[in-house]
């Protein structure tokens, strides 16, 4: 299909004649050459399109632009072609509006919008919390309305099915932490303190935060996406139309399940991390498992475990609330879905770390030997 460009120019008479098919498909292989030759034609050339068999709007646009967006002085075209050029000319003379440029004023406005939307987020979040509290009050008065089945299904989804990945990550982090600490401690001959470091660090800090990051990425994003898609497909509207509360059916089970599942996941992951640390300490420092397990309760007060579990519950509550908040804000299009899912995970992790700092200050005199 590498035929020469369907354009001939008679230099003596100054007549350019187009021939053959002037369609997108036919012109595509010779387009580069054709553009060059169209550009090289004199502006006052006479044109004949008598030899053109097929002309589509792409071919017509190409010619119209080559003519400088006006009819050549002398041109030979059929009525059908003339009508097509008329359409092309009309379209070219009513150009598309251009999106307004971004100016300093827009930047200021964007800042203001961001602040206002942060306020709107807070207000929405508070409204969601309030609605949940009202729903809880209602459920206390009508205990048979508890969405137990949904809560149980969510527990399985966010709890049981998260166990393999949290175990793997916890174990590896435990191994790495123990290995690095052991290298330092051996230099001081303070091998014994590996138990204190791992015990305190993992049970009180690392376990809850590690699980939160994993769960925010795994379950938080899934919750946002699920609620968001239900908005896109109008499923949540269908639910409301049946007189079923969205918060009771969709939000409450997720929040309840994650609040219940997180302390258990924290316990599980911390256990796996300690096991990893134990294995590493045994290989590196020759500390036996028995010694490690005997020493652990003596050097890590039990309060630390309670703090870790409490953190888990609070973080789980926050992750689920943030995920549902963003899920309910999804507008029915794909862009909004992806933006809200991203925002959900980022906000949840940030919030967890902020609240962790608050925990650290509030519990600074508890459980530290």
């Amino acid at each position, binding site marked *: 299909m590498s035929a020469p460009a369907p354009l001939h120019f008679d230099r003596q008479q100054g007549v350019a004649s187009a021939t053959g098919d002037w*369609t*997108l*498909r036919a*012109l*595509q292989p010779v*387009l580069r050459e054709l553009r060059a030759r169209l550009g090289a034609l004199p502006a006052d050339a006479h044109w004949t399109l008598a030899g053109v*068999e*097929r002309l*589509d*709007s*792409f071919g017509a*646009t*190409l010619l*119209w*632009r080559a003519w400088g967006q006006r009819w050549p002085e002398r041109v030979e075209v059929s009525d*059908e072609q003339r009508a097509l050029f008329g*359409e*092309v000319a*009309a*379209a*070219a003379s*009513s*150009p*598309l*509006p251009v*999106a307004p440029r971004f100016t300093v004023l827009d930047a200021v406005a964007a800042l203001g919008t961001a602040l206002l939307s942060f306020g709107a987020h807070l207000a929405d979040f508070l409204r969601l919390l309030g609605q949940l509290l009202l729903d809880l009050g209602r459920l206390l008065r009508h205990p048979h309305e508890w969405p137990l089945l949904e809560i149980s299904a969510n527990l399985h989804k966010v709890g049981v099915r998260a166990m393999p990945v949290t175990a793997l990550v916890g174990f590896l982090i435990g191994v790495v932490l123990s290995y690095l600490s052991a290298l330092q401690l051996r230099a001081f001959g303070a091998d014994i303190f590996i138990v204190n470091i791992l015990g305190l660090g993992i049970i009180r800090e690392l376990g809850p935060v590690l699980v939160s990051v994993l769960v925010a990425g795994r379950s938080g994003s899934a919750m946002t996406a699920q609620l968001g898609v239900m908005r896109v497909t109008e499923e949540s509207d269908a639910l409301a139309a049946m007189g079923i509360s969205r918060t009771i059916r969709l939000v409450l089970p997720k929040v309840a399940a994650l609040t219940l599942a997180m302390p258990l996941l924290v316990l599980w992951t911390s256990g796996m991390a300690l096991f990893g640390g134990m294995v590493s300490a045994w290989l590196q420092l020759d500390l036996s498992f028995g010694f490690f397990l005997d020493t652990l309760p003596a050097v890590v007060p039990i309060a630390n475990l309670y703090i870790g579990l409490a953190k888990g519950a609070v973080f789980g509550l926050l992750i689920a609330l943030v995920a549902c908040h963003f899920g309910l804000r999804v*507008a*029915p*299009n*794909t*862009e909004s879905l992806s933006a809200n899912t991203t925002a959900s995970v980022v906000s949840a992790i940030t919030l967890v770390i902020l609240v962790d700092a608050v925990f650290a200050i509030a519990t600074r005199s508890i459980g530290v030997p």
Partner: protein
Amino acid sequence: MNPPANCHPVIEMRGVVTRFGDNLVHDGVDLRVDAGEVVALVGGSGSGKTTLLRHVIGLTRPAAGELRLFGESLLDGRAEHIRALQRRFGVLFQQGALFSAFTVGENIAFPLREARVATDAEIRDLVALKLAMVELEPAHALLKPAELSGGMVKRVALARALALEPELLLLDEPTAGLDPDRSTAFVALIRDLQRRLGLTVVLVTHDIDTLAALATKVAVLGERRILSYASLEDTLKVDHPFIHRFFHGEHGRRALARVQGGN
């Protein structure tokens, strides 16, 4: 306009078999669509109309059989070759399937940009032209799909389907979800464009109004094969329970009377 000299059928199916698990959907479907024809595919729910259309688009593959577009096989050949074939038709999906992250103008420009054939200035002109073709204003180019009404979504999707100057247009339920007024206007628009651009059209539809106003031929899909393939008048004479129910049922009779009275 001018039918091409090389008279390959635009679509040619022979013995197409489709299976979903144990469910046999098509068992030897033969269909031939010639250039310039408007073929309506009708059939009951679950008779595999849309599946057949998806075979033609190349989204699914039949389990057996032969499928040729413009005389070239869609089922074997290099991926590049099949992509080139796919550029020769435009598809209007049932829900429009506009890219919701893009504006209307960007949606229509997208196929042109991807094909890397036109300069930016040409693309702007062509987008304005396609918008005018589907009777929309240039100002609509800046809207997002979420801001459009159902009728406008279909028009924009049609403009996007026409962006690469296709020879074949595939329509999946073109008037589903439109009110009767808009549906009539949209059908008139498709008919006008079909005549002006010399398109071959295959449409899947349930709507007898649409079918009667557009189709030059009707292919009735049932019992896993093509039951009848003829003009609307001849199809009406076929004695088959499904065709009877579809065209001579309460709604069908009324719609046909309306359309034939109107013309």
